[in-house]
């Protein structure tokens, strides 16, 4: 198991290098001179040359990349242009909020999704099954930021149960988690339902029925257990989507977090911050996928063996 984890971790290195090149190139691909973005109006050519030298922009591009990369792995992501603070500080401040939101949303969509999918599968082709699946279909097709606004309208403005925005209290987490989680619930419920209905047709399930094992024991003890495999696969593949959804939802709820930091700095063209946020999100997606792979390998020995 350790060997598998190490191997998968090593496979991430080229991916990480490729992503870091793309994110590094960001500043250089933007039309115009990056110095023009940060220099004050009316600066002399000498001042400009000093700034160019200070940011190392007079060096060849590969040297700049090596320089940037070595600083980055040491945790130095440069300074924010607008906010005038180290980017690493800004990220350290915002990351915990995003992590809390993302992990709670993941837990919510897993638990509720599997429950809803399992109930729909057990009561297949009844009004309950159709009702659950229709609500889930509707929930997954509306834009997440609109769902967020609807939640604010209903639960915060009209009913006043939860705060409209911010992150001061724990209750401020409820609506954002629900909004992101619902998209995940739809996916998990659909996969659980299909997988359970597929497993229920297998011979070993028939045999359990023939042996007289109670229906609930079969459905929950055998069918659901075997149906977890595709659910984990989908969750590990789509872990990045939860982060993607978090970007919009953080922005709507005006919560601190990587997503809202990214959008704000993108609008302000604060590129060092944009680079830092994208890098962190990319790392999060990679680690999330890795985590999913490990869980899959724990559940299915064939995957472990295949890697050796």
């Amino acid at each position, binding site marked *: 198991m350790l060997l598998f984890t190490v191997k998968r971790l090593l496979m991430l290195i080229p*991916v990480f290098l*490729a*992503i870091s090149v*793309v*994110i590094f*190139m*960001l500043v250089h*691909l*933007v*039309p115009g001179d990056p110095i023009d973005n940060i220099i004050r109006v009316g600066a002399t050519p000498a001042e400009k040359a000093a700034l160019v030298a200070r940011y190392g922009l007079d060096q060849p591009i590969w040297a700049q990349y090596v320089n940037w990369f070595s600083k980055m792995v040491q945790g130095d992501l440069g300074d924010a242009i607008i906010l005038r603070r180290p980017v690493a500080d800004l990220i350290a401040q915002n990351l915990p909020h995003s992590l809390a939101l993302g992990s709670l949303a993941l837990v919510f969509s897993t638990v509720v999704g599997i429950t809803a999918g399992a109930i729909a599968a057990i009561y297949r082709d009844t009004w309950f099954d159709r009702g659950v699946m229709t609500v889930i*279909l*509707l929930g997954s*097709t*509306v*834009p*997440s*930021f*609109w769902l967020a*606004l*609807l939640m*604010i*309208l209903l639960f915060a*403005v009209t009913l006043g149960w939860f705060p409209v925005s911010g992150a001061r209290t724990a209750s401020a987490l409820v609506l954002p988690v629900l909004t992101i989680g619902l998209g995940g619930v739809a996916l998990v419920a659909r996969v659980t339902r299909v997988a359970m209905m597929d497993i229920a047709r297998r011979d070993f399930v028939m045999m359990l029925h023939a042996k007289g094992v109670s229906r609930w024991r079969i459905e929950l003890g055998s069918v659901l257990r075997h149906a977890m495999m595709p659910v984990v696969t989908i969750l590990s*593949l789509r872990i*990045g*989507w939860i*982060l*993607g*959804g978090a*970007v*919009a939802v953080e*922005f*709507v709820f005006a919560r601190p977090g990587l997503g809202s930091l*990214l*959008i704000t700095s*993108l*609008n302000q063209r604060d*590129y060092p911050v*944009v680079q830092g946020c*994208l890098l962190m*999100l*990319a790392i999060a*997606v*990679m680690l999330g*996928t890795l985590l999913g792979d490990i869980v899959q390998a724990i559940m299915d020995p064939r995957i472990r063996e295949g890697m050796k």
Partner: protein
Amino acid sequence: MALRFLWGVVHTPRGGASAFVLMLVIACALFAPLIAPYGYALQNLPGSNTSPNALHWLGTDEFGRDLLSRIIHGARTSLTVAVTAISISVVVGMTFGAIAGYFGGMFDRVVTAVVDLTWSFPEILIALILIAIIGTGTESIIIAISIAYLAQFTRLTRAQVMALRQETYIEATVNLGAGHFHVIFRHLLPNAITPVIVAGMLAIGDAIILEATLGFFGLGAQPPIPSWGAMMSSGTAQIFIAPWIILFPGAAIALTVISINLFGDALIDALNIRSRLRDV
């Protein structure tokens, strides 16, 4: 033949209902200035934030602009961006996928590596990276969305072509002396195209949501050009006094996307291609 087939799809309940909504949205996009009761930029400050009434069926926004007219014009922005972006994505993705799947080798390995790399990233993150590079505005988000969905169509086409390449009739064509170009464009792609087109149609729904999200962030079409996302973005400031500004554009998106999904679903069933779409 094609017409009769479409007639069959439209005659199912969900196919018919979704086709009706889609026709309505497309008509709005095509003939927006004729259908809309007011101009999309016509301001009337004394009549700002009025609730839905006989004059303004869906109410007005913070500048007193008619919401219904702006939603009708917004259909034009959303559909143009989504359809253009996905068309580019489908054409480029099919080309990459077909070449990679047919020839294999180094090109295939590079394409597969890039596709696998982008596959685990949410489209919105890819689009945001690209917008950081190429800037904001309608053209930029078209490019960003088309690249964000490229991996999906490349992967799908490649899988189709790989499966078809083993068929006897392809082997026969090659043995009869047909060139690579002829085999790819006359034999492989026509047979691989159906699932890719249907996946493309479904992706238009996702692209509409992505366009609205980017517009909501203020990265898309610039004011006063109405887009569904940007309308809701300005509506958030009015959420307490004029909730209809965010309710109706969102409902327009939801209705359009649900119709696209239902119609796509009806097409998948009618064409019997569910299994060909699943393994990707």
